[in-house]
């Protein structure tokens, strides 16, 4: 039907409305590319078949995507008079249930995501109906809350292949309005007043751009829609077109009329077949209805739209390259001026706008500029569609008012990091954009602010990154992209990006020198300042921003040759090794054990980790989280394997032989004397390696026996002293002198050490309880966790009550709780966050619960109440609720008004430990604000020459393996400084063992350790967890996939 007057228009509108809100139920399957990719096609056919089979009177149709990609396929189900219900993660086998319910007038709740009672299409309203109070309204669920759909006003609701549905929701009314009573000048004024800015990324004012073309004098003018969306991870334009192609056409028709162009061209990515198809259909239908072609709507306006499929070059997003491509030439940009508005396509004045810009036109014309500027920020009004992807829970297309803080995207709409991982950056603007770090998440997302941070808005890609993303690799990835998409015309982009990529590759291979960082910086600035077109000028942004905000990651790659995220494979043996603070060669000892070579397995273990039996029991096992076996079932239980290997030697007659073997590895005596201050895990580790390197090592310890936290903080049931004693015995045999009961700082001064030793390593622990402001801490019965644990370990007399409250969620809290239980007390653990946020090892928390510890979560201590004798009688806690995410990626607990009281007679505070401030002050070393000793991150040198520090004294309270990692690193660096060369590697021999991955993946599941029954184990301090059996150990060794094996190393020399 040709529309040439308002009468036809109204008739078509009514026909469309009858499809949108029919007398019968309507089911619309979201069939954008994203839905189809998740099985929407199958869902649609299942519906079609079932409706047909049952002879139901139900209208089935296709629609575009409603945006929630993580929950595809989405299906809209509507019963007349009721709200439209959006069902998510819909599969074909759910069709029958839904139809069964529909037959009795019911909506299936199982997959209902949300409902829509009334929808504002902006160009009109649609009232679906009311009811279904148990289903949340669409804007009540986190993903949609805060979104405002202007561009996506029709997406996922109407059938994109039916012009009548578009007209039903007010489509082409804006065009009609413009043609009936709008002068071009008036419309341009409207667009100017709306301050609409180009959504392709540059953010130029659309109204001004239109005015240029309007004023250009020529026999012919062109308008072009740039739909050559090519940023990795961005698909806004695709979904917009797939969901609502007619809005684009209408925007262009208005533009054509206003700017005096009779020809519009849509340059669309050929890789978007569905978008191309739907656009093609839309153009066809528009022609059929008299909306395109001659004498449109009977108003004497001629306009046609042609589709041109892009040839797949990213650079064709640049307007002069796009024009070259349209003219049939290679897509290479040319310098401007002349600007396209002067000389564009075929030399004629031309206007180019991005897809999304055109989508904003009909609503602005319909509702006026004042309405438009209500949304967004002053300089950037309106909304922008972003594709929120990456390491975030809710991925999808989100349309947010401009100026919305970045954190709202990540934490509200996106609902935070995946698997509880903490988000560290967001990359905006694709290859032309940059990375914005966590501490800048308050940044409002608009053109200017992002530009200030060195990024750009771009077309709206937003990639969330967490601790598993290596920022050097991210920079490398984007440069690789622009490098391969550079047109090759100008020198800075063609050659400069090649040089930049080579440098970045050398970083990720660990082959770069510190000077390369400055080289990359200069290179990036040069390309940015001198490249011919936008591609080259913005290509360095990912490098410049990551270097600015994540410089330490670059330095890690260069100076330490480490990639913390474990992404850069050349810098790690395997993910487990990379995550291990001691960098144990885990695949090696697993394989050696597997080959029945127990003694060599032990040798491998002990040379990597001098306290393997202790760490085998108490290590935080970061390796578990990284094991690639997780993709099959669960991580290999690596910690328990090395515990077994260690125990097999330490508790057997092979001990002496193996100790001798270790001692035989000692290098020639160097004559250098080194003092180690503190015989905790850090100090013991450093002493072990320094002694092996041939130095004369003296260890000072304030307590009666070496071991530090291992002996005095870790309870006997977790780590029996007998186990620790064996390990220390081996270390002693290397000829290390231990001077106990001698606190450095009081009994011996650092100055004395300075004169007596060639180098001093400080590795004291964090024995002071962190200061906490809490009324009542002076009461009898209140004690810090470490004091409590040490008293128990030293078997000192202790006044422990019957009802104990432990405050905190770390390992010290759980250790205190389990110790108190063993001493016959009732224990309650109070923690301000949720259980999943507890830093304690999960197994320990579970064990505490099994032993009867009660947990109170989301509660912070308010005050401790004493009785008339000055003894604790209760604790009051204030309930918390979880607020915004903090820098640890966990939600910050916010106090509420609710106070609860728990009767108790003892309160153990386990809220963190710190370095003894008196020592720190007396040491004369430079101390950081956090109260820890300042060191060079890579060498561990302190501000005082000859003095090194590592472990808790530089990090604050941490864990055993982290502490030991510092000990190992310190030994290597101290030796290198003293001897002038790197001799550390000389300590480690080469092992020959199988370098073939298992022919068949072991089908065995992960073994867990045998725990003594809770009721029994709380009776005493006997070790609560028994290690593996030999069989279990072999099973675990067999489960290893051997990610350490690479294809044969590249030939280095001919």
């Amino acid at each position, binding site marked *: 039907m040709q529309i040439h007057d308002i009468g036809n228009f109204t008739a078509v509108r009514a026909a469309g409305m009858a499809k949108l809100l029919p007398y019968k139920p309507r089911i619309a399957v979201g069939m954008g590319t994203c839905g189809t990719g998740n099985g929407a096609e199958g869902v649609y056919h299942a519906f079609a078949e079932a409706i047909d089979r049952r002879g139901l009177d139900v209208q089935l149709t296709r629609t575009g995507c409603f945006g929630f990609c993580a929950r595809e396929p989405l299906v809209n189900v509507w019963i007349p008079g009721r709200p439209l219900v959006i069902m998510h993660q819909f599969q074909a086998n759910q069709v029958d249930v839904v139809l069964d319910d529909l037959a009795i007038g019911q909506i299936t709740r199982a997959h209902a995501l949300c409902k829509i009672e009334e929808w504002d299409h902006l160009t009109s309203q649609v009232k679906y109906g009311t009811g279904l109070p148990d289903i949340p309204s669409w804007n009540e669920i986190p993903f949609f809350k805060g979104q405002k759909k202007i561009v996506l006003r029709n997406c996922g609701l109407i059938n994109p292949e039916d012009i009548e549905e578009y007209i039903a929701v007010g489509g082409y009314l804006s065009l009609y309005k413009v043609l009936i009573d709008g002068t071009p000048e008036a419309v341009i004024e409207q667009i100017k007043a709306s301050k609409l800015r180009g959504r392709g990324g540059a953010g130029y004012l659309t109204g001004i751009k239109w005015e240029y073309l309007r004023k250009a004098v020529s026999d012919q003018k062109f308008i072009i829609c740039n739909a050559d969306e090519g940023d990795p991870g961005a698909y806004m334009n695709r979904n917009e077109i797939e969901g609502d192609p007619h809005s684009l056409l209408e925007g262009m028709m208005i533009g054509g009329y206003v700017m005096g162009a009779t020809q519009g061209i849509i340059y669309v990515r050929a890789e978007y077949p569905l978008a191309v198809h739907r656009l093609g259909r839309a153009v066809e239908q528009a022609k059929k209805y008299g909306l395109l072609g001659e004498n449109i709507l009977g108003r004497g306006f001629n306009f046609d739209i042609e589709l041109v499929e892009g040839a797949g070059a990213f650079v064709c997003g640049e307007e002069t390259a796009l024009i070259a491509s349209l003219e049939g030439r290679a897509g290479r940009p040319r*310098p401007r001026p002349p600007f396209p508005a002067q000389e564009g396509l075929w030399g004629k004045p031309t206007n180019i706008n991005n897809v999304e810009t055109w989508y904003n036109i009909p609503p602005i014309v319909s509702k006026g500029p004042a309405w438009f500027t209500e949304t967004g920020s002053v300089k950037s009004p309106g909304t922008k569609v972003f594709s929120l992807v990456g390491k975030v829970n809710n991925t999808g297309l989100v349309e947010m008012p401009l100026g919305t803080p970045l954190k709202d995207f990540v934490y509200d709409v996106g609902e935070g990091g995946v698997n509880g991982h903490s988000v560290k950056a967001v990359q905006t603007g694709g290859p032309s954009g940059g990375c914005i770090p966590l501490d800048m998440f308050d940044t409002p997302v608009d053109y200017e602010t992002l530009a200030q941070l060195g990024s750009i808005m771009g077309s709206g890609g937003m990639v969330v990154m967490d601790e598993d993303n290596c920022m050097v690799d991210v920079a490398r990835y984007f440069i690789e992209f622009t490098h391969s998409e550079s047109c090759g015309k100008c*020198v800075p982009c063609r050659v400069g990006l090649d040089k930049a990529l080579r440098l970045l590759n050398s970083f990720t291979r660990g082959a770069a020198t510190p000077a390369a960082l400055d080289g990359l910086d200069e290179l990036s600035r040069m390309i940015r300042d001198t490249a011919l077109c936008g591609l080259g000028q913005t290509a360095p942004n990912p490098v410049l921003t990551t270097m600015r905000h994540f410089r330490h990651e670059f330095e890690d790659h260069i100076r330490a040759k480490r990639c913390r995220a474990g992404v850069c494979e050349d810098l790690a043996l395997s993910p487990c090794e990379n995550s291990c603070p001691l960098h144990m060669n885990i695949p090696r000892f697993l394989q050696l054990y597997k080959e029945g070579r127990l003694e060599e397995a032990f040798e491998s273990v002990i040379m990597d980790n001098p306290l393997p039996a202790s760490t085998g029991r108490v290590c935080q096992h970061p390796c578990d989280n990284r094991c690639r076996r997780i993709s099959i079932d669960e991580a290999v239980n690596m910690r328990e394997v090395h515990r077994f290997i260690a125990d097999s030697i330490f508790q057997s007659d092979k001990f002496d032989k193996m100790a001798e073997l270790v001692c035989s590895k000692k290098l020639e005596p160097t004559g250098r004397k080194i003092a180690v201050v503190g015989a905790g895990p850090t100090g013991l580790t450093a002493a072990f390696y320094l002694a092996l390197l041939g130095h004369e090592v003296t260890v000072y310890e304030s307590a009666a026996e070496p071991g530090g936290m291992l002996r005095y903080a870790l309870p006997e049931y977790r780590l029996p002293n007998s186990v620790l004693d064996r390990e220390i015995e081996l270390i002693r045999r290397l000829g290390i002198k231990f001077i106990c009961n001698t606190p450095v700082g009081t009994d011996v001064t650092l100055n004395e050490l300075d004169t007596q030793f060639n180098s001093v390593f400080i590795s004291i622990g964090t024995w002071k309880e962190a200061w906490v402001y809490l009324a009542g801490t002076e009461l009898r019965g209140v004690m810090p966790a470490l004091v409590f644990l040490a008293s128990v370990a030293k078997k000192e007399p202790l006044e422990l009550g019957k009802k104990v409250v432990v405050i905190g969620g770390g390992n010290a809290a759980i250790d205190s709780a389990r110790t108190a239980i063993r001493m016959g007390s009732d224990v309650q653990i109070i923690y301000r966050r949720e259980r999943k946020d507890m830093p304690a090892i999960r197994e320990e928390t579970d064990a505490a619960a099994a032993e009867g510890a009660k947990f109170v979560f989301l509660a912070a201590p308010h005050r401790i109440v004493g009785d008339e004798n000055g003894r604790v009688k209760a604790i009051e806690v204030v309930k918390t609720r979880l607020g915004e995410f903090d820098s640890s990626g966990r939600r910050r607990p916010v106090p509420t008004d609710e106070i609860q009281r728990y009767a108790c007679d003892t309160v153990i505070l386990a809220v963190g430990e710190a370095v003894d401030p008196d020592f720190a002050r007396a040491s004369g070393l430079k101390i950081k604000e956090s109260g820890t000793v300042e060191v060079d991150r890579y060498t561990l040198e302190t501000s005082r020459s000859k003095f090194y520090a590592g472990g808790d004294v530089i990090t604050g309270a941490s864990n055993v393996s982290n502490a030991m990692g510092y000990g190992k690193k310190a030994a290597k660096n101290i030796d290198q400084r003293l001897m002038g060369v790197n001799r550390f590697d000389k300590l480690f021999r080469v092992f020959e063992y199988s370098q073939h991955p298992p022919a068949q993946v072991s089908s065995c599941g992960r073994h867990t350790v045998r725990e003594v029954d809770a009721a029994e184990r709380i009776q005493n301090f006997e070790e609560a967890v028994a290690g593996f059996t030999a069989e279990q150990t072999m099973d675990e060794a067999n489960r290893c996939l051997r990610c350490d094996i690479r294809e044969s190393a590249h030939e280095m020399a001919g």
Partner: protein
Amino acid sequence: MAQKVSIRIDGEYVGAKEGQTILEVARKAGKYIPALCYMEGLSAVGACRLCIVEVSGVGRLLPACTTPVQDGMSVTTNSEKLARYRRMVVDFLLSERNHYCAVCVSNGHCELQGLAQKFGITHVHYGYGYPKMPVDLSHERFVLDHNRCILCTRCVRVCAEVEGAHVWDTASRGIRTMLTGELNRPWGAIRSCTGCGKCVQVCPTGAMAEKGWAVEEMTKRSDSISWLATQRGGRE
């Protein structure tokens, strides 16, 4: 008649005509601005970026070869930053492909080599890649050595704009961009080539040369091509 305008170049007032580029005006006024892809008489493409200049009030650096003068414009042709960036351009070109000056027919007459000397470049800063590049010896009189090609496209333009044959163009993208003739044929098999040799004469390096010359022997006559082109009425 084009409007007369006045601009300042490095502080000196210079008269110019509207429509002229900064480079044209500067060269006429005897101001040196380096360039490799630009050649008088051919259309300007702004590809080598050596002629970048600073224009006061404009945040970006602009290529002098394609930026038209505007009345009152103040241009700086040299600064610490411009010099550094220009050195980097030459540095890039020296190491992009394989330039063995010592054994090149154009040794001593090469514009790239000359610029390196002029800029005091004693070594490259971003490493060599040693790409494998073909040498096309198929033409009876000319040779095309891609090792020495800097993709300035002067040959492309002289052939299309002056000779009218449009034998040459560039193919592929980014660092893989290559000069290509006709439908990627060897030079000797290109039927549209008239054998005029203009491309050889405008080539700033030894990438295109006449056969039969030994090291240092090939001199080019790009000036006469410029003269020819301008006499024929300038660029298309």
